[in-house]
């Protein structure tokens, strides 16, 4: 059986020479990451219900919040702002940060199955498995964003400029990547997928409600405002608002949000890769 033939001496030498090189080249890293992204996207096909949280959920959220809280909120919003204008960037913020939870859960599921052992026994960049999850998740969230935008438009939401809209989405995705690394870290250290879900929810829910995502900061008690103002979800929602609806100058909030994103990535990406390597 020729298929099962071990490397002939000549290719053996080549393999040995290649093997002696320790590091993975940038091109190889990109190829490995690409293969992992493809793997994660293909797995959606196997389990289409996975897409519910990025298709049905944004529709429900947008419609529900607009009609349930829209009336109540009217009074506390700045003059001339309708709730839809306020809410939609908030929904995007919520979606692109909460959506990252699935990254941690999926990585943890990989660990609970044997497949991660196979990946770790291959000569690939250690980060490829993690990158693959994060990028695939971001692509899912782009789909969710498109659906949300369609629903919001139907309800009457209008963007200020197209550039602003995509800029806002870009900033949110930046933060989403940062938060994803936290999710990946939790996914690498927590014992089970359910634990990952629990920890993430516990951390994200207070952050989500104690922010400017659904309600203006000015309507909150002052002790809470201190927290809300340093909450990265607040600056993220504010930058999205400013960029998407032109509600004010965006530069300051954008910078702070991106700084958070960078900070999260710089801290949690190395921690995640370390935890991934060491997990037994």
């Amino acid at each position: 059986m020729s298929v099962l033939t071990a490397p002939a001496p000549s290719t053996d030498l080549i393999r040995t020479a290649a093997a002696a090189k320790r590091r993975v080249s940038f091109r190889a890293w990109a190829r490995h990451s690409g293969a992992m992204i493809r793997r994660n996207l293909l797995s959606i096909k196997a389990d289409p219900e996975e897409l519910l949280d990025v298709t049905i959920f944004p529709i429900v959220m947008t419609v529900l919040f607009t009609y349930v809280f829209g009336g109540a909120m009217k009074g506390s919003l700045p003059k001339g702002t309708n709730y839809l204008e306020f809410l939609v960037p908030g929904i995007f913020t919520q979606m692109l940060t909460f959506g990252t939870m699935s990254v941690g859960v999926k990585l943890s599921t990989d660990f609970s199955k044997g497949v991660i052992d196979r990946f770790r026994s291959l000569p690939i960049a250690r980060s490829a498995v993690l990158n693959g999850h994060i990028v695939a998740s971001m692509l899912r969230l782009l789909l969710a964003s498109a659906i949300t935008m369609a629903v919001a438009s139907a309800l009457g939401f209008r963007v200020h400029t197209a550039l602003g809209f995509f800029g806002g989405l870009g900033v949110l995705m930046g933060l989403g990547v940062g938060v994803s690394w936290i999710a990946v870290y939790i996914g690498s250290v927590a014992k089970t997928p359910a634990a990952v879900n629990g920890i993430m929810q516990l951390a994200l829910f207070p952050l989500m409600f104690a922010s400017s995502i659904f309600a203006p900061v000015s309507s909150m008690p002052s002790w809470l405002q201190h927290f809300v103002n340093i909450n990265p979800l607040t600056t993220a929602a504010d930058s999205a608002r400013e960029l998407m609806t032109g509600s004010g100058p965006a530069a300051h909030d954008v910078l702070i949000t991106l700084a958070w994103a960078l900070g999260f990535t710089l801290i949690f990406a190395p921690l995640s890769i370390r935890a991934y390597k060491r997990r037994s």
Partner: protein
Amino acid sequence: MTTGNTGTTPAIQVKGLVKRFGEQVAVDHVDLTVPTGSVFGLLGPNGAGKTTIVRMLSTLLPLDGGSATVTGFDVATQPHAVRRVIGLTGQYAAVDEALSGRENLYLIGRLLDMPVKAARARADELLETFVLTDSAKKLAKTYSGGMRRRLDLAASLVGTPAVLFLDEPTTGLDPHRRSDLWEIVRDLARNGTTVLLTTQYMEEAEALAEDIVVMDKGRIIAKGTAAELKQQVSGRTLQARPTAAADGALLRELFEDALGRAELDGGLVTGPLTEDSQLNLLLNRIAAKHIDLAEITTTTASLDEVFLQLTTTSGDAK
């Protein structure tokens, strides 16, 4: 060039390997030398430390002591190089259940830097070899246990590894599937792949491995070929049945005189045979007493008995 796999380097060289999990010593100063192109059997009961050794050699677990090289590459300091030359099939099928069989193999090919076309061709080739072509497009989660195992093994062969680790590859497989898998392992070995096989079954080690190491509680308790292991335990037994049941007691006495120990059970007399000369001596005495024998046999301890004896003795020693 500091290291490389020249002809004289063993495929796997392990010296004083140690792994601890908290207080428990899972692998206790193990030495192994696996020559290139051989099938090497690591035999032992659950918890003997076999899987832990495989996980250390395949760079999944750090070493707590000693050293190990695979085709000359140090698993601790050159893990990336080791990963380039090994294939690993674990106890449970490490395939992605959400992908089809073909996509699983294609993914590994791409991760091993094969061009798209080559990765596709290799996937199809392996699907064919492992009789999975008909299910190539079905998701792995719909596969039967045997199919998953085959896919798993195929996945570990995508990169034609020089050294293949098979960790209890047939646990849970029915006997028919087991012999299919054995045939594949033999093929691999014939074609020059070095195989390190762990198993709980003496039969499997005997069927596949030239060299066998028996492990228990993290230590090596015996090593050699299957035949040598059998000899190591003087497991030969002499059994005889007198034609007349009434001669049983007398025959037992003769057995005891000649062999040192004997039992009479249901008309059958049994005693341990340690030297060939005992046999002649005993037969002469039986003839002198005019006892007619209906049957007489010597049996070698089965390898399973050897295994059992080795592992129980090592337990008693503690």
